[in-house]
């Protein structure tokens, strides 16, 4: 089993200037992941797929994550005792993230978790599409575009997948508000009461 740290070093050995960061996971699952800079993503992805020692030829899953802007808390103990109540520092800017789960069918290892982040949640939400590398990402990137509003540059057919074309907004964003229930049922009940009377 090849670890995420080993994969990172392997990639950096081939491409020393690639922006590739290890995000370790301290949960029992220990599923460390690799955060790749958007500008290097296609090159790194091609390397992961074609490198004879990695051969990550199968992208099983693509999904999105919405990280709203939130305060970053100083870990306990690092702030002086008197300042613990004021330990919150500047808000961490929000972003959208795409997560790719990669496996190797030929070398039988995986999953390798590859992540990309947008610059913010409002106007800079473009990321390179990895569909040219793994064709199986096509529909799933469309779904991420549909539900999170991340624009994938280089995607062959970036249309909504689940919602209809006329739909506005991206329902899996944390600030999306669905139509209120009262807006539907109350006019219905009122209309029915009128008809009965």
């Amino acid at each position, binding site marked *: 089993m090849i670890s995420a740290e080993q994969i990172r070093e392997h990639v950096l050995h081939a491409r020393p200037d690639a922006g590739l960061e290890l995000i370790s996971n301290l949960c029992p699952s220990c599923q460390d992941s690799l955060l790749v800079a958007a500008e290097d993503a296609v090159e790194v992805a091609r390397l992961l797929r074609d490198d004879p020692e990695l051969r990550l030829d199968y992208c099983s899953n693509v999904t999105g994550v919405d990280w709203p802007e939130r305060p970053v808390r100083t870990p306990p103990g690092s702030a002086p005792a008197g300042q613990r109540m004021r330990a919150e520092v500047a808000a961490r800017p929000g972003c959208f993230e795409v997560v790719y789960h990669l496996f190797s069918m030929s070398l039988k290892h995986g999953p390798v978790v590859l992540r990309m982040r947008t610059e913010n949640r409002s106007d800079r939400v473009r990321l390179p599409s990895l569909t040219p590398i793994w064709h199986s990402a096509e529909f799933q990137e469309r779904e991420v575009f549909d539900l999170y509003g991340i624009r994938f540059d280089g995607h062959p057919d970036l249309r909504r997948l689940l*919602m209809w074309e*006329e*739909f506005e907004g991206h329902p899996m964003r944390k600030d999306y508000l669905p139509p209120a229930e009262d807006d*539907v049922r109350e006019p219905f009940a009122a209309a029915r009461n009128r*008809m009965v009377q």
Partner: protein
Amino acid sequence: MGRMNCSMDQELQNELSNRGVHVTSLEWIYNWGRSNSIWPMQFGLACCAIEMIATTMARYDLARFGAEVYRPSPRQADLMIVAGTVTKKMAPLVVRLYNQMAEPKYVIAMGACAISGGPFRDGYNVLKGIDLYIPVDVYIPGCPPRPEALLDGIMKLQKKIREQKLLGPDRPRHADREASCDYPVPDYGPNDLIPTCNAYT
């Protein structure tokens, strides 16, 4: 043949019946025939459809009720079993299929989703009950309902059909030339379907 709903004297009716002459009302024989040949439309939307399919198979055998002939075309179907979650994207198509069915036609809302949206009611993409757009005759609760529950729903519908009048002020829509059967197909809007419901009686 059971109780024949006509104003004739019961003893005379039995006497004639023993001699092979059956006297009944047109309404009774008409409803008897219809209630024993309810042809459902062959379409399913979610997991409830699996239970619906199981109901038609040998173990539960919907054919006992004359309702096993699932029709692949709405033109030939009498009953629409809305079996499963109706998403807002699918709702206009379901209403269009209902409009394409010939009168008399009936709707069974099978399962929590078709009745009210069920566990997805608070979501952004699921219709809060198919009765917002088309009239439902029988509601079958469950998630999903057992095949026995669907059979019970079919029997309830048969009972309803047998009690329908052909004449009179409370006759059903299909027997009333003046009655409106206009069920507009909703459009896709920027946030929700437009309109969000149909006003019907």
